[in-house]
């Protein structure tokens, strides 16, 4: 168990990189607290796996340092770091039994057989692999194989952290849920530091104490699932988290209000003043927070309802504002909505302003 600290860490696969776009991972300072579960969330190719491989030691970063409990491990090989990693595709040793697979990391470290037996039995019970210990790992299903990969990480008592690289990609949907719950149990029982890479926001939200959103090699926001939902600090977070994602409208400023196609939308106090001087302004609001009215009220804007999608337990309504902009509104299932004219209210407490893609607070 360890606290993992990244100091001015950056990585480029090209030697002598200087421009920011040459970097797979741009300079970051970051602390992973001991015993917490983190999710690294981001689209494919954003640098999540690079970051994970740097933490595990499979990759040596081109710039900066990694500290485990204050000790510099930047140049140490993975086997010297006491770290476990579970990969996207289950890695098992074909010729070995499940027992030998689980025992492998311990035997490589010359742990005595009695201790090996105790650890393997405990981990196998935890992961419900007890019944297949004597079987050859090759013939098992993908979920059992992934449990074995996970077990090889858990079996070492001295492990500092477990890193997961999209471990549920190849697992059937109905088993995904079970395995995710298993992971959560493992985390609660052993209080291990866990870093979980995924591009699936539901997975990230259910697994982690804190979600770290990575975009184009940078950490754009870290926080609890609730923070990410209510207060995205970057337009990418707004767009990536939530289904459907946040609505964004290009706007200008006029006093305390935002101007969208000449329509005034009120903002929270003082926000407009802090955004002065930015070149590109956008207004953002979650579909969940927009209010739709059937007749004009104070502070509403006229819109045209285009399309109503009924998704079973809620509705997604697409409306057109001021001729060019489309917005999506999420409404309860039982709320009747007719095509045609309607009025939309932007509650100021949920209306966010973004200057050059960053939240204005």
């Amino acid at each position, binding site marked *: 168990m360890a606290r993992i600290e990244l100091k001015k860490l950056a990585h480029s696969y090209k030697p002598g990189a200087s421009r920011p776009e040459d970097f797979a991972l741009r300079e970051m300072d970051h602390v992973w607290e001991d015993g917490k579960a983190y999710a690294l969330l981001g689209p494919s190719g954003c640098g999540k796996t690079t970051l994970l*491989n740097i933490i*595990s*030691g*499979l990759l040596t970063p081109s710039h900066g340092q990694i500290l485990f409990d204050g000790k510099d491990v930047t140049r140490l*090989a*993975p*086997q010297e770091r006491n*770290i*476990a*990693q579970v*990969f*996207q*595709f289950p*890695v098992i*040793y*074909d*010729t*070995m039994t499940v027992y030998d697979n689980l025992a*492998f*990391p311990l035997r*490589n*470290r010359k742990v005595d057989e009695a201790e090996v037996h105790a650890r393997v039995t405990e981990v196998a019970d935890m992961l419900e692999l007890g019944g297949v210990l004597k079987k*050859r790992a090759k013939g098992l299903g993908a979920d059992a194989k992934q449990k074995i*990969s996970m077990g*090889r*990480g858990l079996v070492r008592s001295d492990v500092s952290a477990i890193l997961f690289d999209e471990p549920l990609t190849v697992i059937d949907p109905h088993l995904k849920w079970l395995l995710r719950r298993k992971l959560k149990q493992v985390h609660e029982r052993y209080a291990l530091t866990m870093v979980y890479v995924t591009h699936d926001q539901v997975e990230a939200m259910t697994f982690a104490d804190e979600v770290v959103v990575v975009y184009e090699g940078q950490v754009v926001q870290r926080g609890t699932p609730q923070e990410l939902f209510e207060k995205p600090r970057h337009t990418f977070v707004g767009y990536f988290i939530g289904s459907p994602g946040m609505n964004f409208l290009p706007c200008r400023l006029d006093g305390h209000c935002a101007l969208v196609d000449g329509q005034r939308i009120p903002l929270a106090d003082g926000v407009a003043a802090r955004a002065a001087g930015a070149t590109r302004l956008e207004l953002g609001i979650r579909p969940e927070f927009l209010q739709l009215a059937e007749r004009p009220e104070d502070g509403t804007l006229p819109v045209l309802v285009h399309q109503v999608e009924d998704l079973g337990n809620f509705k997604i309504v697409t409306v057109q504002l001021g001729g060019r902009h489309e917005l999506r509104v999420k409404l309860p299932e039982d709320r009747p909505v007719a095509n045609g004219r309607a009025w939309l209210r932007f509650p100021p407490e949920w209306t966010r302003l973004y200057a050059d893609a960053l939240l204005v607070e």
Partner: protein
Amino acid sequence: MDKIINQKAWFLVLPVLLVVAFSAIIPLMTVVNYSVQDILDPQTRVFVGTEWFQQVLRDPRLHDALLRQLLFSGCVLGIEIPLGIAIALSMPTRGAWVSACLVLLALPLLIPFNVVGTIWQIFGRADIGLGGAVLSWLGIDYNYTASPLDAWLTVLVMDVWHWTSLVALLCYAGLVAIPDAYYQAARIDGASRWAVFRYIQLPKMKGVLVIAVLLRFMDSFMIYAEPFVLTGGGPGNATTFLSQYLTAMAVGQFDLGPAAAFSLIYFLIILLFSWVFYTAITNMGKE
């Protein structure tokens, strides 16, 4: 579920049956035909039953040739398989050197068998060949035309030079197909270099190794052209392998009956060994 009985399946098997019949079964049957008859001249032939088989099986010269052949194939497999694996393991997996290595390895495989024999025949001569000259300059008394041991070693080295590439290329194909995650997981699990070879690389190469062992066994067991050119089976009978002996019998002395009986036995031996290797390797590592 009830089985559906549909005799049409026979028609689907028919093309394969025809191809195999014309390419293998019918030619084999003509050999069977020769093996049970004594053909005195084109008009006169006598049915002799298993006489030729008995005669061939009791032939001491054939026993010697068979032993030599087994020893040779054993040596070929014992050297070429580990050496091929070692070469494959030490080859680069990416970068510009990959193509260079592959071309270099493929070169010996492109040379016709009898040319290989000629190359080594000249290479091994002490008067005009580089290899022979270097050996005698080093003070080693080397003469493959006079010493049975030298002849033997020359044939063996020649085969290793000619065919190890095949094993190496097959193993290399097996190795590059292993996903990186296996090596990464092994590093995290703290596996030694030997453990990586034993538990990841070797099991993943099993499929191509079966092919390599079978091909090298069958080919070395039927070796003909190279020793024919290089040593002509000599000195004495030192490098007379089974196919040399068979050719001498069938084409040289025109003893078609015994030669046919011998061919069939030869065929059965190869079939038996191939089956043994195949089952042994595919069952390796099973419960």
